[in-house]
């Protein structure tokens, strides 16, 4: 249990990268990039976790209750929303690639010249 979340992180990273490398469809490749990025959320939250502590919101509990690290949660929070917009930009590029080259297969796109 001491290293299991970090092993899961490298597994998700490996699986996502495998999907990117062996993909035959641009939209499938973009979704595998989303999976790779989700591994960083798991890593951030696993680093900041304190065993036995509660969430860092002191609305109804006393201020000195032991709580988990809020800084990594702030990082992961903005990361999740910004990633969706950047994915939308990637999808717009995929649409443009389809319009220009007529194919969405990344292994065929490489061999086209302009």
């Amino acid at each position, binding site marked *: *249990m001491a290293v*299991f979340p970090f092993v899961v992180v490298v597994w998700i990273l*490996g699986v996502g990268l495998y999907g990117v490398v*062996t993909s035959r469809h641009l939209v499938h490749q973009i979704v595998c990039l989303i999976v790779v990025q989700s591994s960083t959320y798991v890593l951030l939250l696993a680093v900041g976790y304190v065993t036995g502590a509660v969430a860092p919101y002191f*609305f109804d509990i006393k201020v000195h209750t032991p709580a988990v690290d809020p800084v990594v949660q702030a990082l992961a929070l903005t*990361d999740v*929303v910004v990633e969706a*917009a950047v994915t*939308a930009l990637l999808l717009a590029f995929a649409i443009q690639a389809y319009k220009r080259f007529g194919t969405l297969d990344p292994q065929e796109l490489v061999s086209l010249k302009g």
Partner: protein
Amino acid sequence: MTAVQRRWLFLAGMAILAGFYLWGLTELPGFGNYPGPYGFVINRIAVAQTNATGVVSAVNFEYRGFDTVGEEFILFIAAIGVATVLRQLRNERTHESAGHEGLGAGSAETTDAVRLATLVFVGPAVLVGWFLGSHAQTSPSGGFQGGVVLATAFVLIYLAGEFLVFRRFSPIDLVDSVGAVGAGGFAAVGITAVALGLPYLTNFLGLGTVPGAVSSSGTIALISFFVGIEVAAAFVLIVGELLEQTLLVQRGGR
């Protein structure tokens, strides 16, 4: 290089990466043994310093506000990028084919059940989005989540089959300007602090008396509001551009 060779090359590289990563794991303090001082320090002093009981939002908009400005501008620029790429595509197509049908000709007919189910949830979605955007300092909420939920309310209108109503509720110029107001508002709050002689993004408004009330914590609530409307405008812009792409029916297309 064939596909099979590429696959084996990737697996070899991934094995090396995983080996180094797992070797580095042996030096970590282990899951749950968080050693660093910053988490404990912030948890102890944040409520007293900012009168905000939601410490994660206080970190986002106050202690690390400068990073959040950067992230929000990434979001803004990504939305503008989507709009630029897709609008250029649309203008090219309008020049190509002379006689194309207008918007709404391709909108699907939805059943009454779908229409009822989606329209019932539009009001609560707007309410929940507004609640999340305005309560960043009290409980688990904030501008980012509230903005996405608010954008979902507009998408529900489209799902009920009324693309033209969706477009009337969110005309492109209005959505563009609301997004700009949101992004610029955040930067303007920081610059107002500079105009008052304080460092950029200092919390210059009054902190309120009760920690965790909606009116407390000064600029955190204001920044969260600006971030909420900016995120909502960005997502409505993105979805609107993609929808206009799908609903233009071309008669002599490429």
